[in-house]
């Protein structure tokens, strides 16, 4: 029932309860939805972190460097403090002249964080991996790629994001649906077009299993045409499926291991 009503509601671009055929169904749906939201919130709360850092950009006014304090969302993906975020959100479009520094990971609504560093990035996939430099011995709650959600069109999905400090970093859940699975430029789950979430936002299914992460996918200059510019504007969010993230993460960890060997 839950899946059916959510799918119908989202497919029409409206909230599910408003579409329910009778008061009883509406009440049931609403209760289920509340339960779903609650379970997703509970399951993901400790894994959604805030990355606070200073972005230094070279080549500012008069050739001087500029620094800005920024925040973006991160997702804990391993017990030992491995975090994933959007490359675009972390570094912006600095073209190699920007670098994040003094990175802190904030949990929940904590004001003070723990230090972290970037270990690798994949600009093509819009992913950056960070690691907490001195992880807590007890480890961290994390999202497990092994138990990932499906990307079948029609699947209801739930984006989880943390609000700004001004709102007490409240966890917010937003609902959408997978509208299609694109194969170009790579395999991506496309959402309904009013499901607009920031890059780096993780998306879960109704069982709180990771479906994927919203990433920014832009054509290169060579691939961009006036027609594609317009088409891009009416696209929904583009979700990189969890299994693709898992593969990329393995490569990132391999790079990290190589770097560590070099350091030694």
């Amino acid at each position: 029932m839950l899946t059916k009503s959510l799918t119908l509601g989202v497919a029409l671009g409206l909230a599910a309860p408003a579409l329910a055929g009778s008061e009883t169904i509406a009440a049931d749906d609403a209760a289920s939805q509340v339960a779903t939201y609650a379970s997703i919130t509970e399951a993901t709360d400790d894994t959604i972190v805030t990355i606070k850092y200073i972005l230094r950009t070279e080549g500012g006014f008069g050739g001087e460097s500029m620094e800005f304090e920024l925040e973006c969302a991160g997702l804990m993906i391993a017990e030992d403090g491995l975090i994933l975020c959007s490359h675009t959100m972390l570094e912006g479009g600095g073209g190699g002249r920007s670098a994040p520094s003094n990175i802190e990971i904030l949990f929940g609504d904590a004001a003070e964080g723990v230090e972290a560093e970037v270990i690798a990035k994949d600009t093509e996939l819009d992913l950056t991996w960070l690691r907490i430099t001195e992880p807590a011995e007890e480890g961290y709650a994390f999202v497990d790629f092994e138990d990932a959600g499906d990307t079948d069109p029609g699947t209801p999905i739930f984006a989880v994001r943390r609000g700004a400090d001004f709102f007490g970093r409240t966890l917010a859940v937003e609902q959408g649906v997978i509208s299609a699975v694109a194969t170009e430029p790579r395999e991506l789950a496309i959402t309904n077009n009013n499901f607009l979430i920031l890059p780096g936002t993780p998306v879960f299914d109704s069982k709180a299993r990771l479906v994927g992460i919203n990433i920014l996918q832009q054509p290169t200059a060579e691939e961009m045409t006036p027609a594609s510019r317009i088409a891009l504007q009416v696209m929904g969010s583009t979700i990189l499926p969890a299994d693709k993230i898992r593969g990329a993460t393995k490569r990132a960890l391999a790079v990290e291991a190589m770097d560590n060997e070099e350091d030694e």
Partner: protein
Amino acid sequence: MPKSAVSAGSRHLRCLAAGALTLALTAGQAVALEQREDRGNMVPDAVAAARDEVFPALIHVEVLVKDYGWGGEMRYQSNGSGTIITPDGLVLTNAHVTDNGERYWVTLTGNQRVGAELVGQDEATDLAVLRIDLEELEEKHGTTKPLPFALLSDVSDDLQIGEPVLAMGSPFSLDKSVTQGIVSNPKRVFTAGAEGRPEAMNLGGERTGQFTEWIQHDALINPGNSGGPLVNLRGEIVGINTRGGSGMAFATPSAMAKDVVRQIIANGEVQRSWIGVDFIHVERTGFDRGVFVNAVDDAGPAHEAGLQPGDLVTAINGEPINVLFAEQVPPLERMIADAAIGDEMTFDIERAGSQSQITFATDRLLKDSGEKTMLREWGLIVQEITPFMVQQRRLETEEGVLVVGVTQGRPASLAEPAVGWGSVLTSIAGKPITTKADVLAAYNEFLDAEPRPERVVVEYLERDRSYVTAMKTEPLDQLDPPRELPKPWLGVITQPVIAELAAQLGHPEDPGFRVARVFPGKTADAAGLEQGDLIVAVNGEPMAPRVMEEAGRFARAIRELEIGDEAELTVLRNGERIALKAELDVGPLTIEQARRDRNRDFGLNVRELTFFDRDNYGWDDDVRGVMIDGTTDSGWAQLGGLNFGLIESIDGQAVRGLKSYRRIMDEITEAEPERVVFVVRSARGSSFKFVEPDWRPEGLEEDNAPQAAAN
């Protein structure tokens, strides 16, 4: 005839012909020279004489300016003109040329370019005096004093409308230039506003021009003429060209300049009296004599003596005074300012029909604007507070220092709450701040501390509100962009051949990716791929772009494979399908991925040399170094011409990459040489760049303060 004989004969003929030509040219040149001697009379004697009196003393001035803005320091170059006015190398120029100067150079008429130092500047009259580095002049060019110099005359007050004048200087930095004109008005006063009041302009936060009656003339001047002499036909300097535009030029009178120069040489500055009164002319006040008191400063001596706004001053020190028009205000202001500080001044005043007299001693005229300095580690630009600023900014007192700039992302801006623009710092780390010296002491104490404190508590005022905050002072991590995940790469550049184009090329069934470039020595080259090949499949997967939006599909397909994998390429070559196997190698570092270094001393950003740079410039693997990636405006690197290219060596040491570059630059910073020689390679080959760093400590407030203090 043997070939060699022809050659010998030809050579002989050519020699004869050349000799004849030489004779002809010599004869022709002799005639031309004779004619040119005749043409010497083309310049009127008076103009030539005036030119020759001043020209040998004319100089071009270059100034490296350090200013503050956008929360940080900015450097740029200012250019102007000047005149040597003493045989020992004192140079008169404009204060707006030297303002905020960090380094100064002058170029004499013989093209001798040497350093100079600022003796002093006077913003009120926009005049400054530099001293040429005579030791450097002798060492570099063998020139010794006495230097040619020009006379500053007293005759500027006697100039007549229509009198011919010559403007000399370096318009647009083109040195040794002369233009001619006439005096349009020898007593020009700028007025503004509905009341037609004399207009004081602004020079670096200081009022300027308030005492000046300008010489308006029409000898063409342009940016770069500033500070250059205005000369009469007797070869006397009658003015200093200071402003201009729209065919009108304005010079500061030489008589005024002479007095200012005397004071600057004696004291390094011009000291003036102040009484705290704003006078306006009586033209629109209903009075027909005296001068009208428009406003009285509460802190001034005239106020203390009882002068009030609305009073009419009819005599000063017993001399009747009549300021009927705006043009008469600057001379009055100047007369008061020129009085010795502390001199007694008596005003006859009229108030509501009754007459009285007040007497008071003058105070010293203070600068409007306090000195600024940057506390880099805290990301703060602070300014000492003057009485004028207290009034202008409606501050409570002169105590504390005013925050006039905050660097984004640095401790002051990151503090919670943040220290903002316009705040007045009143205490740092528990120590009260009342003057700029206090803030510098607190800053130096922080810099000297081992280890440096992680937090610095700051108290500050925003108007009448008192705040406290803690700045986190940890330094920024090293700038290096995160490394990109390595991806497989074939070593080709391709273009999509969509169906429409494929049809035109005669293979409508085979769209694909045409090889536009094969990088020599890379995987595709080793696999035998050639320019013009059409790749139609990878590992059996068709590569058939439908539209241009799929231009990146082939490269993506390769990147999605694993490094070390073997890719089978189906290639259409000369109408036949062939299969090529390529072992995928790791893709080279891109320019965006290259690691970077920023040297703040030199204002120089560099990055690693990449495969794509080599390919772009045609450099082989033997070429090593670091690529210039940007320079700070008017930083040492930029001034030395280090703008682009590959740094191959520094002071004779080969730069192999970023690591050796950093080591060499560290050694140079330690050694502080007078000159650093960079060899820079560009598309046109290698060239030498000579950078002359200024290692002098910039002052206690700067980051190198501890070393400076130790020295």
